């Protein structure tokens, strides 16, 4: 295998095309109706809570589940009725699924042997793949002699060695401890940049998705909620599900937009008003009801001599110390409980639970969505 980015010779821009695919198990709808073109060479993540359909969708690409409706195409070829062993996909399973009765070398070589590759090329490619996953020279080991992290790398090497049309990863990092997980995220990203295989990654961890993906597909209850690159997904979620699912966020009560000239503000119940900030985005029309979502990093302790707008008197409820920062929960009159993010840990002593605190809520980067009917 090559260490240069390889893009499979042109069958078009899309390595995988899912067209109106659906999957039912009797009365249970796992996937409602999904259409998704996957660009060649991109790192695409399917993200969502358990039961959202992401694994079912992955299995449909791999061929382990047949769609109840719709088609799947890989490299321009309709594979909807093609069995898994003829689809040219490489999959890394959640439990790695390494063959226990074979050595590391034989595991990695398996895909090449099934493709009747010449013996010498197999030896060369397996070594190259093991080098790529930083397991050089471990070909002779037995699977049970490896740690979890090493097994995961073997599973990866095994799936990439024959340069499949698309690499499929089913929550491959979920069994690893936090540090190893973070490290593997870096390595996977590096690997992807090096080899350039089209990759579909499934996870329920939104932090993981944000850190690794070119595009993220957020799913819920069998449907796609949003497809966006990470930055856009974080700052511009299109509905309240995505807004709440990605990162931490505070949902404010429903308010009305009040526009006057170039500025705008939001009027809440009880007469509270927040200034909309200088974002310049087009806001909904005057008098529309909106739900406002504010990230914890947009709430800060109000400076004594700082700007006066959007300052609220609140009371500290509790602190959650995270090393680099502290998440402080405050109780506000009119907006309920909000979480704010403060650097370091000094706030724990300076503002213990129960103390009064003045905070400034910046709506510059807030997410403004038209309120759903009946929302509070």
């Amino acid at each position, binding site marked *: 295998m090559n260490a240069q980015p390889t893009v499979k010779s042109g069958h078009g821009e899309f390595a995988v095309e899912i067209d109106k695919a659906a999957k039912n198990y009797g009365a249970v709808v796992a996937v409602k109706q999904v259409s998704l073109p996957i660009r060649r060479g991109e790192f695409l993540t399917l993200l969502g809570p358990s039961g959202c359909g992401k694994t079912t969708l992955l299995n449909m690409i*791999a*061929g*382990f589940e047949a769609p109840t409706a719709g088609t799947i195409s890989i490299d321009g070829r309709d594979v909807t009725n093609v*069995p*898994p*062993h*003829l689809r040219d*996909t*490489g*999959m890394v*399973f959640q*439990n790695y*699924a390494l*063959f*226990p*009765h074979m050595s590391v070398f034989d595991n990695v070589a*398996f*895909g090449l042997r*099934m*493709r009747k590759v010449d013996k010498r090329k197999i030896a060369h490619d397996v070594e190259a793949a093991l080098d790529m996953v930083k397991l050089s020279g471990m070909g002779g080991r037995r699977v049970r002699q490896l740690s979890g992290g090493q097994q995961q790398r073997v599973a990866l090497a*095994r*799936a990439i060695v*024959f340069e499949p049309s698309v690499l499929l990863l089913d929550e491959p990092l979920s069994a690893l401890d936090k540090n190893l997980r973070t490290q593997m995220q870096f390595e996977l990203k590096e690997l992807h940049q090096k080899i350039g295989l089209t990759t579909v990654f499934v996870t329920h961890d939104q932090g993981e998705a944000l850190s690794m993906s070119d595009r993220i597909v957020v799913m819920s209850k069998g449907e796609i909620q949003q497809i966006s690159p990470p930055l856009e997904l974080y700052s511009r979620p299109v509905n309240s599900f995505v807004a709440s699912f990605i990162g931490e966020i505070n949902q404010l009560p429903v308010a009305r937009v009040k526009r006057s000239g170039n500025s705008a503000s939001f009027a809440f119940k009880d007469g509270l008003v927040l200034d909309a900030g200088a974002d310049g985005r087009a806001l909904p029309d005057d008098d529309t009801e909106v739900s406002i979502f504010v990230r914890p990093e947009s709430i800060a302790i109000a400076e004594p001599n700082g700007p006066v707008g959007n300052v609220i008197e609140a009371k500290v409820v509790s602190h959650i110390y995270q090393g680099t920062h502290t998440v402080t929960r405050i109780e506000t009159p009119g907006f309920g409980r909000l979480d704010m993010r403060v650097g370091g840990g000094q706030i724990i002593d300076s503002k213990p639970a129960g103390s009064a605190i003045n905070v400034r809520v910046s709506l510059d980067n807030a997410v403004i969505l038209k309120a759903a009917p009946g929302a509070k």
Partner: protein
Amino acid sequence: MGKFLFWTLITVILIFLTLPAVVVIMSSVNPTETLAFPPKGFSLHWYARAFSYDDFRTSFYNGLIVTFFASTIASIIGVAAAYVTHRYSFRGRRLLEFLLAAPLIIPRFTTGFGFLLVGAGLGVNNGYAIVIVTHIVLVLPFVTRSVYVSLVNVDRSLERSAANLGASPVNVLLRITLPLLTPGIVGGWIIAAILSFTEFTASLYVTSYATQTLPVAMYTYVREYTDPTIAAISALLIISTTVGMFIVDKTLGLKRVLAIESH
């Protein structure tokens, strides 16, 4: 106090279970003609007589032939049966499972007598075939069960992974499933061999003088002679089957093979 009673009970049970074997082995080294316990000396000449007695020698070889073919054929059928009943659902599956387990419930002499009648009808009662077929039927439940338990413990994601990497269903079976079933198959074979080699009741019906197996020959001997030769040959059987089980335990784990615990 409770612990003392517990260990006493265990010891009593163990003595009860092993006493026949101990008695047999001790009588086999008794120098005098009559079967006596406790033995009045030490001599191995009964073992020499056991080895030189023609009927014991021929029946030993007969046993090897019957056991080898019966165990091997039963293993092949057992693998197929276990695979089919575990992986597929079809009409009549329950019936098949029942038929496969039936020899465990049906008395051995019924099975033996039944095959004797069948053999008589087909005119094959003088050959090995009828004995082998009888033994296959008797040991099949054990092999099937051993393989079935192994099969249940095969991780399906391994088979999926192989398919994903390009293995056709046949390749998955040959390269992944069967190798993973090997402990169950081999263990089943060994249990089948031990059962077949020591099988008496059904064999009494379906063997002829020419095809008699060792247990049948031993029975015939004991009806005519009462010297310790019979103890010697019994001791040899006991020791060899014990060694056989020991090997199975050391290599595969007896618990796994007898399907008491999963991998």
